[in-house]
């Protein structure tokens, strides 16, 4: 199956470019930092840390990987094979979700142990990682340099992380309910106390809806810039 082969190749690509080594070091820093956080703040700190890094690592990494592939000039060759644009996108989402899950488990197991709801924890990480991977891909496709990518990816992601303000009791509005990170925060909170069925369904559905929109966006960007070269998008 081509998607499976692309997924495995992406894992090897990430390994060969040292991403796993870097994240091993990052994990060590997080684990060390969490060990000195007072017990009273540990749950909140862990939730925010889990959201900001393992869940959202795809934002920078996916874009970085796409920029690396572009620098190596392999796109042109990749898209004159039967590979489908959607397969390319999904392989990136799945492979980076694996890294996100590994890092998230490493941090949690070493600080608070197994999450109460394993399903909610895994869904929170995988769905959020996939969403931010897609945002990272879109930002990278539309960028011509590392600097513009960093700027664009932060701009794109800024609006989505606003529900964190609500979590920190700084600001709230009912509009946050339509943002995917609202679902992420609910699922992550639910790892320490189970969610109601309706809350669980809402959290998963809002993430899936946004993932669907992001897939469509990245797909059309890639189709117009890589698969064909006269689609009025910048050529990758």
């Amino acid at each position, binding site marked *: 199956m*081509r998607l499976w*082969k*692309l997924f495995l*190749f992406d894992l*090897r*690509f990430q390994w*060969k*470019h040292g991403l796993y080594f870097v994240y091993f070091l990052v994990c060590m820093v997080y684990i060390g930092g969490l060990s000195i956080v007072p017990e009273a703040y540990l749950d909140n700190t862990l939730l925010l840390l889990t959201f900001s890094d393992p869940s959202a690592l795809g934002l920078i990494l996916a874009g970085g990987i796409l920029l690396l592939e572009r620098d*190596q*000039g*392999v796109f*042109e*060759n*990749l898209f*004159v*094979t*039967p*590979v*489908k*644009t959607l397969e390319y996108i999904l392989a990136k989402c799945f492979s980076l979700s694996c890294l996100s899950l590994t890092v998230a488990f490493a941090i949690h197991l070493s600080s608070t142990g197994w999450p109460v709801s394993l399903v909610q924890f895994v869904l929170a990480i995988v769905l959020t990682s996939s969403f931010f991977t897609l945002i990272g891909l879109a930002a990278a496709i539309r960028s011509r340099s590392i600097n513009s990518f960093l700027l664009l990816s932060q701009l794109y992601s800024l609006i989505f992380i606003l529900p964190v303000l609500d979590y920190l009791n700084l600001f709230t509005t009912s509009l946050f309910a339509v943002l995917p990170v609202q679902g992420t925060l609910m699922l992550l909170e639910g790892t320490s106390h189970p969610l109601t069925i309706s809350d669980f369904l809402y959290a998963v559905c809002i993430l899936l809806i946004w993932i669907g929109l992001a897939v469509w966006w990245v797909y059309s960007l890639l189709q117009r810039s890589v*698969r*064909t*070269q*006269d*689609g*009025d998008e910048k050529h990758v």
Partner: protein
Amino acid sequence: MIKVQELNYTYPGQDSPVLNGLNFDIQQGEVFGFLGPSGAGKSTTQNILIGKLKQYSGSAVVLDQEVKSVGSEYFERVGVAFEFPNFYNRFTALENLRHFGSLYRKRCSDPMDLLQQVGLIEAAHMKVADFSKGMKMRLNYCRAVQNNPDVLFLDEPTSGLDPVNADMLKKLIKQRKNAGTTIILTTHNMQAAEQLCDRVAFVVNGVIKIIDSPKNLMLRRGQRKVRIEYQMQEGKKTSEFPLTDIGDNTEFLSIIRSHPIVTIHSLEATLDQIFMDVTGESLV
């Protein structure tokens, strides 16, 4: 195999067209060369035929499909070697070929056999980052043919190759042709075009000026003469004689009988000369 009619193309945001009503067809098993100066429209034509440029007018049919509407399945039967041989640099040659080969549904050639054919078997486990340009070009060819395509697009396939490897690659291309593969060659290398192509098209300013076999072009545009360089006591001397009734030309016969011959050439045109005549540009 390939049929192009009234093909026009203008890049988005530009006023003037790059291609102006191209017409040609390419038969199965033919090696067809696109020759012309940079910016003439050769690469645009190739990019239309491989489905990367869709907003053309006219018709471009490859493998019985209008290229405008082909999907990714089209590439099961098509191979492309771009001018710049780009690979995953941190992967070995073998890993690169295996990865690209794994993307086809059909069974691909054994990568080790292909590396053997192009003299890269010893470098199979070397990272591509450590390859020279010539090695990458040979690997580029392997990648393009590993799915045994019915139609093969080669852009400057001998660029960066030393004469031995260029000759080896030309032999492999001829073998492909003999096996029935249709090959579209885009090149500035007139020698490669002359040796490989059944027919060539000179593209200038988005128009095909001439389509013919290299042999016909060279004969038709050359002089029906022979130039002979021979040794005299006072030094070398050169004379030209018409080919017509040359066996009865007493002066010619006298020279070849009574003087050591240094060189003797018929004066058909070279493709380089034809290129310069047709395009008005010199080859660099």
